[in-house]
């Protein structure tokens, strides 16, 4: 970070807020990392029955919404549909 952006551009409170959002989700024990991983595995197992997926590219995220609720989002890139027999 240059002195220029230190002086003019940087709002460190945004960092503080973003970091706290993540910390509080974990601290509140809503989902810890192990839970999230296990959930991802189970969800992918279901999706795999219907579609060909790139397992490594799947992503699961927990974010806090404006109203304080939690938003779970899952991204699963699909490479093709499973052929029906």
């Amino acid at each position, binding site marked *: 970070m240059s002195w220029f952006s230190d002086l003019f551009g*940087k*709002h*460190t409170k945004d960092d*503080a*807020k973003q970091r706290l959002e993540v*910390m509080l989700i974990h601290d509140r024990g809503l989902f810890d990392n192990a839970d999230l991983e296990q959930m991802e595995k189970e969800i992918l197992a279901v999706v795999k029955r219907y579609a060909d997926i790139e397992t490594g590219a799947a992503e699961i995220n927990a974010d806090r919404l404006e109203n304080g609720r939690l938003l779970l989002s899952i991204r699963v890139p699909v490479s093709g549909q499973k052929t029906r027999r």
Partner: protein
Amino acid sequence: MAGQCVVVTSGKGGVGKTTITANVGYGLASLGKRVLLIDGDIGLKNLDSVLGLERRVVYDLFDVISGRVDLKDALVKDKRLPENLFLLAASQTHFKEDVPEDKFSTVVAQAKEMFEYVFVDSPAGIEHGFRISSRFADRAVVVTVPEVPSIRDVDRVVGLLENYKVKIDGVVINRLNQSLVKQGNMLSPDDILDLLEIPLLGVVPDDTLIVQAVNQGEPLLSKYPSSPVAHAYLNIAHKLLDPDYVAQEVKKPKSFWSIFGFLRGEG
């Protein structure tokens, strides 16, 4: 009379619990309520010197717990508000672990018979000292400064208080620096309220007057009653009495320089 026990707690140390207990307690007493302040930081003594009562302490919490004196004989009367404000001091010769939960609970119950508000100034941390200070409280005031570790600790403490079924009156945001907030380099009260899911009780500005009041052994509220910080403490006292109370704007004192500002047309 069945009063209410209010614990003032924070998780993190040094964020302003003792100063807030002294001044908000003083504020409620000045509004005509009968108030007892219990120093729950056993092993250390703080509340007595912030109130300037250190020389009048004869007995402490431990003398009451051990049955050496009755609660009413261990109380120190604050002569500035003699009918309304009392202190039960902490002991320096014992550790927090020496206080059994059931004994502390008995003291709180007796105190609630005698006072409308019984404040417990909790020690930092979430161990035994925090637990005895909080478990028997009806309500809680949590204190944070606008910094990441302190906010994180408060969130954790709120979870523990909920487990104890203590009603959370709200958070006091202490040591706010308005110009840092304007710069975008300090979390604003709104940011903090977005993160913590509890109501706001009040915002106390960062102010060196607090140090000066402590130096002189007077609660800021009695020493500098027209300062912005005093207004902030008094607003919190009002808000504890009535959650719908709308905080009065903290007036900026007219300084020497603001007169020049006026002359320059900034006024």
